[in-house]
């Protein structure tokens, strides 16, 4: 019995993988050895703080073993059983997508079909008739990542690109730059070295729409959990503001405020009112650094055009928070050194994904500005970023153009997409179904404020519509809006051909004509840095959310299971069939591509390639006397910017706004969008187009909030990891289906006759989702809380817009974007009703029969999906692969 230890990274963080006889036995954090560098030491308030000598991944990373051998792995290439390859693309039974079963195909058969269809469609309609998109963060590693091999393939092919929207922080992206610039950080604040600042100075933390133990600083796992404990231990007061008394809040909050969903902007205005009337803000700072503050103050005080003072009493009526509490919050914030912000890195959070998202984000920045943002202990920082780091060491992150095989210098030749036509992800179904769509903005607008205002139209004049859709990884059913629209889109004959390349048989995978099985990170080579989303890409130095900077050689722990293959292999083979395989690979193997990332970064100066792949990881230490570059300090103190941002406009001590100051009346909005009703020059509280003031509230009286999930990462773990279903706060397994937990306040539950553990139907005019009720005082009275990003989508009638039992609450969220000129999505502005469900429920999840049929056909002895789930996952499968390994069958 030979044990092998390899290393990898997933969205939950870096892991060490123990393998015995070709089978994964154990997953654990990486524990550093004596040769790895010392950790940083922060001296604060008479103590010294230093991190543990190991990586601290999230618990989802520890479930990777369960996920690799999951019941819903796609084992073989598959073709929809009633798909007909008609020469003109018509009469292909597209109405059966989602419903039909599949037959097993060989790789050659599947890839030949895909290649033929690409050629036919591009010859018939033009290059732009093919479109493709990946999900968010579908796997980690610079080679396999969506911006790397996927981008290389499709740029070489030529295709209609689908622009991503910043779906985790819409309000900050489309709003905050109009108050403080930082569009190159996509609206987020800079938080360099603020951990030390906080430990030394802060007295109060405002955790607004923020659950750091759940969202984990993005990809930083549990690295920052200890930092917040340190702050707690030294007596820092934590104030949580969230309609849900979230998991971090119940553990840590000194005070929990529960505003009615979507009214947080009113709370901001009332806090400002208290500060203005009591004179408790930094007047000197404002005089120096603010633009048109007095006009804004007039609005808050009721001297503006609406003549309505934004008093705490006024805000109480909107938010449900007592006026006395609002005053107390405002006074505490103003009279102690206060840091805070919204969501996982300070500029995220569920409230930024509401109809008021941009206005809230702008007001939050303005509040921090009023208290002297950038002075010691006064800043936007939410306890999840800003650890010391050696800025002299550079290794690329996934969004960094320098770290993608679609670009130089990693590739010798960088392909350029020859198609200019674009689509926009949130409204893709509208564009396909209606044949026309218009929108503003370039998706991610880190390249300039002006990019928010470019107008797009689909189809672009002179261009064809799209007729082929290539989906790659994950499922948008659980992350996009009003997602029954996606069901209707897939059934449209406009889409003559649909390909899905994925590891798991996800909700969206089941709508494809051809399914190509990719393997997991643990079955292929790659390379990547823990929590580095790209320095110079967009969110600079996200790896300061870690205590350690760790680059990992993502070694292959086992060979790809069944007939799955790496994403790179799939694209390379397809390129070969299209006649440009050599150009795609440049003659390199996957391992040779990995070496290019080492060679073109500072890593090659620190460790040899041989040593790196042998050890499996490299830890970059922080010099004992590291140089501090405190976020915003340069601006507060009026010296030239010294923070390691990657854009100009700061060299003279200016912000990235039109005036270089905090704009309380936005000049950029006056210039670019003076008539925009959703995002006015003065950020104001506006009644939501789907909120408690709208007519719809009479029929659907509950606000549904569906924040980023605690038991998943987007849609990547829950569906494929039955271990997670054993967590009572996550799901309840009934009749072979894992029902999602939905939380309701006891008072409203009593009125509805709902008891804890009952099956309940969440519904509105867009759809219905069956969940299990958790009756709890942890939610605001008018709120239903159910985590979004459900990886599981199980309509009772497969392929139809029927009741879902998978907990896919995004079916209920509005397709409407924040505003006509603000193309951000607002899933947390959703009204629903709820009732006890006493109807029939199906046996199982309504899709396993499709996988079981193909699997049994190939291997009659293989266990069924249900057997794998209820046998706790994978033992039988592992035994099968151990046997193959020992026979030598699986050794390639």
């Amino acid at each position, binding site marked *: 019995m030979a044990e092998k230890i390899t290393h990898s990274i997933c969205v939950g963080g870096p892991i060490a993988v123990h393998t015995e006889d070709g089978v994964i036995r154990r997953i654990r954090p990486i524990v550093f050895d004596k040769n790895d560098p010392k950790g940083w030491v922060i001296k604060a308030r008479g103590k010294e703080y230093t991190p543990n000598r190991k990586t601290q991944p999230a618990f989802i990373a520890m479930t990777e073993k369960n996920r690799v051998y999951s019941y819903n792995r796609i084992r073989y290439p598959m073709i929809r059983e009633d798909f007909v390859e008609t020469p003109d693309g018509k009469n292909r039974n597209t109405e059966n997508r989602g419903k039909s079963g599949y037959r097993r195909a060989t790789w050659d058969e599947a890839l030949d079909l895909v290649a033929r269809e690409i050629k036919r469609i591009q010859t018939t309609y033009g290059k732009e008739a093919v479109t493709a998109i990946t999900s968010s963060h579908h796997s980690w590693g610079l080679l396999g990542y969506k911006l790397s091999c996927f981008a290389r393939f499709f740029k070489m092919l030529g295709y209609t690109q689908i622009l991503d929207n910043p779906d985790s922080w819409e309000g900050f992206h489309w709003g905050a730059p109009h108050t403080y610039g930082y569009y190159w950080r996509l609206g987020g604040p800079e938080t360099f070295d603020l951990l030390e600042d906080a430990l030394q100075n802060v007295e109060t933390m405002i955790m607004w729409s923020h659950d750091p133990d759940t969202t984990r600083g993005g990809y930083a796992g549990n690295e920052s959990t200890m930092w917040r404990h340190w702050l707690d231990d030294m007596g820092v007061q934590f104030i949580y503001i969230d309609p849900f008394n979230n998991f971090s809040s119940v553990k840590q909050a000194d005070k929990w405020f529960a505003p009615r969903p979507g009214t947080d902007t009113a709370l901001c205005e009332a806090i400002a009112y208290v500060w203005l009337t009591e004179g408790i803000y930094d007047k000197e700072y404002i005089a120096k650094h603010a633009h048109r503050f007095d006009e804004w103050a007039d609005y808050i005080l009721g001297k503006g055009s609406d003549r309505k003072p934004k008093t705490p009493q006024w805000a109480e009526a909107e938010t449900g928070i007592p006026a006395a509490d609002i005053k107390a919050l405002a006074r505490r914030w103003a009279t102690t050194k206060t840091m805070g912000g919204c969501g996982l890195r300070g500029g995220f959070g569920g409230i930024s994904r509401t109809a008021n998202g941009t206005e809230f984000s702008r007001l939050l920045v303005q509040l921090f500005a009023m208290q002297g943002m950038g002075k010691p202990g006064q800043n936007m920082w939410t306890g999840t970023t800003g650890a010391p780091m050696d800025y002299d060491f550079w290794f690329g992150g996934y969004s960094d153009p320098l770290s993608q095989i679609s670009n130089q210098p990693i590739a010798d030749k960088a392909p350029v997409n020859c198609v200019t036509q674009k689509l926009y992800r949130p409204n893709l179904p509208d564009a396909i179904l209606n044949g026309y769509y218009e929108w503003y903005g370039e998706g991610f607008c880190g390249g300039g404020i002006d990019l928010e*205002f470019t107008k797009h139209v689909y189809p672009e004049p002179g261009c064809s519509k799209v007729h082929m859709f290539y989906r790659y990884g994950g499922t948008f059913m659980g992350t996009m809006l009003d997602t029954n629209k996606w069901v209707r889109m897939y059934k449209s004959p406009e889409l003559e051909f649909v390909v899905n390349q994925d590891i798991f048989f996800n909700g969206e995978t089941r709508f494809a004509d051809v399914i190509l099985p990719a393997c997991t990170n643990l079955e292929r080579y790659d390379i990547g840095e823990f929590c580095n989303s790209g320095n110079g890409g967009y969110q600079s130095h996200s790896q300061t959310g870690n205590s350690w900077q760790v680059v990992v050689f993502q070694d292959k722990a086992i060979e790809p299971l069944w007939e799955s293959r790496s994403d790179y292999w799939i694209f390379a083979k397809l390129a070969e069939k299209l006649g440009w395989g050599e150009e795609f690979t440049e003659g390199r193997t996957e391992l040779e591509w990995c070496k290019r990332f080492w060679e*073109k970064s500072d890593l090659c100066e620190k460790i040899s390639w041989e040593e790196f792949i042998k050890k499996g990881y490299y830890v970059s230490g922080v010099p004992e006397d590291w140089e501090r570059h405190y976020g915003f300090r340069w601006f507060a103190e009026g010296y030239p910017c010294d923070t390691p941002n990657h854009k100009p406009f700061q060299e003279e001590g200016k912000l990235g706004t039109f005036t270089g100051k905090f704009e309380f009346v936005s000049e950029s909005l006056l210039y670019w969008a003076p008539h925009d009703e959703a995002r006015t020059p003065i950020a104001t509280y506006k009644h939501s187009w789907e909120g408690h003031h709208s007519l719809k509230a009479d029929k659907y009286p509950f606000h549904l909030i569906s924040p980023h999930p605690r038991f998943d990462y987007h849609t990547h773990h829950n569906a494929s990891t039955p271990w997670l279903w054993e967590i009572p706060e996550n799901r309840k397994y009934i009749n072979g289906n894992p029902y999602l937990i939905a939380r309701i306040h006891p008072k409203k539950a009593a009125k509805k006759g709902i008891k804890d553990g009952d099956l309940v139907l969440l519904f509105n005019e867009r759809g219905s989702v069956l969940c299990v009720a958790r009756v709890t005082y942890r939610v605001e009275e008018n709120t239903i809380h159910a985590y979004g990003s459900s990886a599981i989508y199980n309509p009772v009638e497969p392929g139809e817009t029927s009741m879902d039992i998978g907990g896919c609450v995004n079916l209920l969220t509005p397709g409407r974007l924040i505003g006509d000129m603000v193309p951000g999505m607002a899933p947390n502005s959703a009204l629903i009703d709820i009732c006890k469900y006493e109807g029939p429920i199906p046996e199982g999840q309504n899709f396993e029969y499709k996988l079981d049929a193909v699997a049994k056909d190939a291997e009659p002895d293989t266990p069924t999906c249900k057997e794998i789930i209820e046998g706790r996952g994978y033992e039988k499968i592992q035994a099968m692969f151990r046997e193959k390994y020992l026979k030598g069958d699986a050794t390639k």
Partner: protein
Amino acid sequence: MSKISTSNTGELLLAMRKYLNEFPGDTICVLQIWYEGLGGCGVPTPADMEAMTAVLNTLEDWKPIGNVRYEKFGVQNSFKRVKAFDKSKFMGGGEEHSDKIMVQHLFKVGGLYRAPDDRVFKIVLSEVYNLRCFEVKDGNLVGKMIKIHPTSDFAKSLVEVTD
């Protein structure tokens, strides 16, 4: 409106000269002058724009170069400094914090720069204290990533390739 009346040509000229003398860049549009140099509030009127453009046209240090895109302002009619701005005053000067100036921002990310030995470098990243470049040969990025300290003599010797 702005703190300076654009209809008072003399006052406008003085204010614009003062701002432009301290402006460290080499390309500018009237919108930037309006907001940053004149303390403008609200969108300048066509008359304001014309007045500022007229002043710029009289300045011998600046020449019109047509449309240029700005990340904040979009595409704007622009002017370029005739004589390159003296970067050396930002490089390692004696003033407080001058050693922390991100002078690499005086180099354009994505820009090409020629060294005295005729090698051409493309700036691919600018972070604290390091310009990061690759050498460019036959239009391609080649070799290893090179770090250049932005206040070094080598950095000062780099000349932007504009053709």
